[in-house]
């Protein structure tokens, strides 16, 4: 009969209306600026630079190797290498970026820079509220803004950060073992020099390791 369908529909919508007041599931809206949905772990927006320790600029892992600058498809990274060197977490002397700029208006969030970085330095951030009244200067971010602590990285991408930390620990252990071996070899060489035999071991020769360009990325 005409009308039964209307009555059924009215009951259905009334149930829907009332359930939004009692059941949170039936009102899934998240009122964005006031409350935020936690981002999924796989989300990514734009790159950031990770630093260790307290000081943002001193702790930067970046060694200004410029691989990311060269690999970047839209060429949004601009790096100027420092004149001097400083000691990195492995105890090696490294360059550091005097200027490290990323133009967020050009960046396409492809993550290639992250994949090529041999120093676990450049990672993807999840911050998306980047609106600015200045579309040129406001979206050209410098290393001061790019620097984010490792703790922040561990918070936004826990799994990746754990893998990254493990890789760095391996690197560091390797470097320490090598330094130890070098020291032993040096001591041996010194001992050998004291003796008349001049044949030194070949490991002793590379005193200063070449900076990053040659270093392959650790498989994770």
């Amino acid at each position, binding site marked *: 009969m*005409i009308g039964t369908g209307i009555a059924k529909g009215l009951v259905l919508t009334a149930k829907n209306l009332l359930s*939004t007041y009692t059941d949170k599931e039936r009102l899934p809206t998240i009122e964005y600026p006031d409350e935020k949905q936690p981002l999924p772990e796989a989300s990514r927006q734009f790159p950031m630079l990770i630093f260790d320790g307290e000081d943002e600029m001193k702790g930067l892992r970046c060694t200004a190797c410029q691989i990311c600058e060269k690999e970047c498809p839209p060429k949004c990274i601009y790096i100027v290498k420092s004149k001097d060197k400083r000691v990195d977490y492995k105890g090696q002397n490294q360059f550091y970026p005097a200027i490290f700029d990323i133009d967020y208006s050009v960046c396409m969030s492809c993550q290639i820079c992250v994949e090529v970085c041999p120093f676990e330095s450049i990672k993807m951030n999840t911050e998306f509220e980047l609106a600015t009244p200045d579309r040129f200067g406001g979206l050209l971010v410098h290393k001061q803004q790019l620097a984010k602590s490792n703790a922040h990285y561990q918070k936004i991408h826990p799994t990746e950060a754990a893998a990254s930390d493990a890789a760095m620990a391996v690197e560091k252990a390797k470097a320490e073992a090598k330094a130890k071996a070098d020291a032993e070899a040096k001591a041996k060489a010194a001992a050998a020099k004291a003796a008349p035999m001049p044949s030194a071991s070949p490991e002793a020769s590379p005193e200063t390791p070449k900076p990053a360009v040659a270093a392959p990325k650790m498989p994770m």
Partner: protein
Amino acid sequence: MASLDQIFVTLKAWVLGLLPETVQPFAGVMISISAIMAVFPGIFALTTVVERKLLGRFQNRPGPNRVGIPLTKIRLAGFGQFIADGIKSLTKEDVVPRNADKVVHFIAPFVLVVPSFLALSVLPVGRNMAALNFTETGLLFFFAIGAATEISVFMAGWSSRNKYSLLGAMRGIAQMLSYEIPLILSSLTVVMMVGSLSLVTIVEKQTAVQWGVFHNWHVFTPWGFAGFLLFLTAACAEANRTPFDLPEAESELIAGYFTEYSGFKFALFFLGEYLGMFAISGVAITLFLGGWSAPFTFLDWVPSWLWFFGKLVGFILFFIWLRGTLPRLKVDQLMNLAWKFMLPMCLINLVVAGVWHYTADWNDLIRWPLGAALLALPYWIFSRRFESRFQTRTYRYAS
């Protein structure tokens, strides 16, 4: 309680008493007009917010809930929205198409709003509270004025020089003319039974007591109940509410006949539509739901105007509920419903009302089932035929 019931009447009399006798008739008119102009647009403003909020809830979203008092953090659950909407529509640019018939285009919104206010003025919103009390022709005046809104719809559609506007206007005219007939025929039963066209008299006839605690509202009779449902359906169509919102079908015609209106003229159309809805709800209340009278005798102490406006709010909420539920009809379905279903049902209802009148001395337990059966049987037959048409769709050209 009687003083609270008559508070507005006594207030008006007191104000008039302060004035010299020569200006009293004029001042009385002005007071009534300003009351109507303040109350109903006020309800309209709140209705827009409530409608948006409720429609949101029907669709599992919160609806507007941010605009509160300006320059503060007080949100009032979004009930400041209508102020923001009002400011927006007042400050928007008024765009008139270059090829539009400018005079007609300008007049159309007023031709819609003025009759809506006039229609509201005949409603008895409380005991002794009808702004215009036509003792002979109240209902006739209402329908005559209501018919003027159709002119406005066509004026707006024609003058805009826009295909969508014209299509919307054509649909609007076809729909309103078709549904005017069931509307008037279903209210005619009440006129038959009461023997008066005066809305005030119709309400007063419904204040008698029946079945112990009930007032004898017309909706408690078989012909009244059927007439009420028919009137409600036709009222939906007259007020262009879903499921009969074809003249302004957003998904097909942009905004129908007011596509080419912007700014405050658009707001006037919006206002006119809602005032029309209030007016027709008010008439439905007056004719079938006892106007300002309470449903039970033991609730008679509640002020009469509170009953009227309570019922009006109920109607508004019901229309919103319908809008959140029903999809739009097609044009052929619309016409079929009006001419092949509602018109015969209205005519049968007139007969049932006549039967009811001539069996006045019978026991209610006999004549109530008799009247119900006289209506239910044709309803069942018509709806069977109707549904077979609706549910088997034949495609003539597409295979």
